[in-house]
């Protein structure tokens, strides 16, 4: 089995989010991977994020093998690599992917931890199976398996075996907790592989509902249910889901597919009680999710078309796509993203003004009618006489430019091309306004780009 486990050596370079035309220094790191069907190597997305070069090393083989990312899903932290040089897969058997291991059963992790050159095996038991926030993306939870087998840096992307089949991909630990490692179970791996089997990554669809427990006897009676029965309640819906009209507030989900839903919102998955959204993550995009619901004191069967929504992308960590920006007269405009606000430091939540935090995390749920497609911030101002009198020069969210409400980076460019006055007026979300002399701004623009080494004034 170990022969099909490879070391993944990566040189990567990630962008500087508040100077988006620049990159950080090249960094080197290593992880693990394993051969799967179709002459491919599976690893973690976080192992190959922002990769400039990926080199694979086979078991006991000194030769470097260049690889490339074929598919990567940052939300479930998985990637598939291809090796174009013939011979890499010679004598390497693809590893079969099995099912969900039982709690307390023994598993073996395999990989190249701590950058070591030799393969390492560690044994442990399955501690529990539950939904976990996947830290690579930061804003999504999927099924994961906890084990006490050592999972250290460098193990990432390596297989976790049970009875000679892969039951997971090692991917994260928990700082401060001893003997606690996590691996991605086969249900998530298989979803990803099926997703990309048509040549395109769609991602995990979602139903757009928030499900809460339904354990208060009064609420159950209010809905016409027995005080101690099963079923969890839809407490709220996203704007898009509400518009479809298929699901409604106060619908009680009695079953997802074949899985009955308990009053605490869990299902019984192969002996483990896990949150019911696990079952929501089974269909592929465009497929239907069969639900048994309770509405109007009647049991109904509904089929919910599962869609992938990209609207929460900016609240999670972004990878591989360099940030969009537009620089004009030294003013650096870029979308409001988690990666951008993280440039304020570890305590970014207390540093960022509250308009930004609200727009990023709360606006969509509270006042969806006022959501901007792509909120834009003035990330920085590159000092020049044309902009030197601006008091508010960075870390501010844009409301309007020349009277146009800014919904995207393209709006910034359009807005700066209009206005009848000799000045551009920028209104920030805080109410502050700043102006720029139009003629001087146009004249200064090329020189500013030159001075600050910006090859292109925009990346759209």
């Amino acid at each position, binding site marked *: 089995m170990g022969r099909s486990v490879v070391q993944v050596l990566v040189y990567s370079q990630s962008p500087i989010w508040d100077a988006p035309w620049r990159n950080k220094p090249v960094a080197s790191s290593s992880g693990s991977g394993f051969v799967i069907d179709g002459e491919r190597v599976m690893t973690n997305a976080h192992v190959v994020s922002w990769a400039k070069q990926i080199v694979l090393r086979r078991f006991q083989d000194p030769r470097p093998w260049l690889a490339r990312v074929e598919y990567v899903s940052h939300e479930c932290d998985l990637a598939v690599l291809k090796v174009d040089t013939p011979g890499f897969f010679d004598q390497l058997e693809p590893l079969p992917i099995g099912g969900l291991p039982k709690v307390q059963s023994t598993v073996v992790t395999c990989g190249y931890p701590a950058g070591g050159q030799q393969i390492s095996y560690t044994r442990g038991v399955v501690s529990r199976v539950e939904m976990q926030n996947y830290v690579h993306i930061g804003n999504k939870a999927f099924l994961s398996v906890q084990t006490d087998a050592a999972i250290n840096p460098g193990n990432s992307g390596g297989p976790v075996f049970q009875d000679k089949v892969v039951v997971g991909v090692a991917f994260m630990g928990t700082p401060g907790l001893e003997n606690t490692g996590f691996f991605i179970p086969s249900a998530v791996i298989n979803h990803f592989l099926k997703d990309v089997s048509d040549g395109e990554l769609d991602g995990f669809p979602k139903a757009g509902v928030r499900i809460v427990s339904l354990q208060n*006897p009064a609420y159950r009676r209010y809905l016409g249910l027995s005080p101690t029965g099963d079923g969890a309640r839809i407490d709220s819906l996203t704007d898009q889901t509400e518009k479809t009209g298929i699901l409604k507030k106060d619908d009680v989900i009695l079953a997802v597919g074949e899985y009955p839903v308990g009053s605490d919102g869990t299902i019984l998955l192969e002996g483990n009680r896990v949150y019911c959204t696990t079952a929501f993550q089974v269909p592929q995009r465009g497929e239907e999710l069969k639900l048994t619901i309770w509405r109007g004191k009647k049991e109904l069967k509904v089929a919910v078309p599962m869609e992938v929504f990209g609207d929460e992308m900016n609240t999670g960590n972004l990878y591989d796509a360099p940030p969009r920006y537009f620089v004009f007269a030294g003013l650096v405009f870029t979308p409001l993203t988690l990666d951008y606000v993280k440039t304020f430091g570890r305590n970014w939540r207390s540093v960022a003004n509250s308009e930004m935090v609200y727009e990023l995390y709360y606006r969509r749920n509270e006042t969806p009618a006022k959501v901007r497609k792509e909120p834009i911030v003035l990330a920085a101002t590159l000092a020049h006489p044309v902009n030197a*009198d601006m008091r508010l020069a960075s870390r501010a969210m844009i409301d309007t430019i020349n009277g146009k409400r800014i919904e995207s980076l393209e709006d910034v460019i359009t807005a700066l091309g209009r206005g009848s006055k000799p000045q551009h007026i920028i209104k920030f979300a805080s109410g502050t306004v700043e102006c720029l002399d139009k003629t001087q701004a146009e004249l200064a623009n090329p020189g500013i780009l030159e001075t600050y080494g910006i090859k292109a004034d925009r990346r759209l």
Partner: protein
Amino acid sequence: MKIKTHFLLLAAIFTAASPAFCQESLDARWQSSIVNFDITRNNFNFRVPWDKRADSARKTGAIINGKVIVTTANRLANHTLVRLQKGGRGQWYTGQVEWVDYQANLAVVRVADPSFWEGTAPVRLASLNELKGNLQIVRWRSGNIEQRAAEFSRFTVADANFNQAPRIEMKASSEMEGAGRGELLVSGARVVGLVASKTGSTCSVIPSPFIESVLKQRASGDYKGLGFFDFIWQPASNPATTKYFEFSGQTGGVLLIKPTTRPGTSSPLKLHDIILAVDGFPIDIQGDYLDPDYGHVIMEYLACRNKWAGDTVQLKIWRDGREQEIDYVLPKADFTSNLVTDRPDDTEPTYVIAGGLVFVPLSAEFLSSWGADWQRTAPFRLVHYNNQKANENQPSLVVLSLVLPDRYNIGYQKRNSHNLVIDRANGRQISKLNDVLEALKTPQEGFHVFEFKKGSSMEKIILDAERMPEANQRIAKRYNIERLQKLK
């Protein structure tokens, strides 16, 4: 008393000529005028609003003319007993807080027992031209006068914690440990001010001229409290911005970006007016003006420079391409009608407990219960309401702050049911605790239906109406709560 005063004056004159005499004369000068405070108070926890916890605090005050003691208002809120000690040791006397103004951060305390006043002498407050030289901070410590040198830094205008009520402050640096509790900042024989707080080595001092003007106004019976500028401005330092608004006057002034901060109030000011002068003082592009007493300070101080709530200041503004003069009536620094209410201190927390659901007003005190760093540590969504305007239908907000676990409210006891702002109860819009009580009178077909703001981590809670009284009794007993509601 007169003889004593003359002696003190002589001592003051002598001090300047003889540094060796300084320590002894300073001690003698202040020991009859500085008093210790021992305050017992209710230190409420607005997140457990029925719980009263007694607390005590020590501070310093100064005897002034009229047999009264002046001190800062800090630590006097919700006091139940105020005891005073003269001479730094010996007997304690009971005092009565005669007057307190938390915006001005000043209080006046009387002692009824005549024996307290024996051997005491009032301090003399420094005038404007005596504020900066040879500063010392003095207080009682272990029965002796403690004095530490202080160095003048600057005058500044301070805001209250939650609102814009301005007052002048002197910044001075000193190494006196634990200062900031009403110690006297003195220069020679005069009191320059009271130390209101200390951060690091920087003391914030309420200057004596400000203290004197407030006390004088109060003595006249015409004290209406501090006023403030109820508008928000930005510096007009960007020439392109002033050109955009077609300002062609002399450089200076600030650009108005919010004519009023209080909903439902009208203002003579309009968005993007440029304020050029206040009461004849030209405002510079930073928003400062040259005060004849305090130097360059921010224009907010002009709302309380010999002015009080209800007084009129004259603004010179730029509007519609020309200069105009308008009168601006200073509103009282009263923020009880803010969306996040900022009530006067000395009020006990209010609450309603219904079926274990604890409802409290969303108030400055409630948010402050997360500590001095509440803006970072309190739930973001609640903090953000402090930046939002009230609307007519919901001028204030009520929070479900926590749920006291009981079999009646099972299913709502996790953290996602805490700190939620309620929108409606039994179909009724909720702005105040009274609304909750009224709503509870009209259950919906046997159920109480609580709906929370859209986007809350739990948007709806339903309870059995018939069983609520029984649950209330059980919860009150189990959690040892004397009263399940307190509205005033």
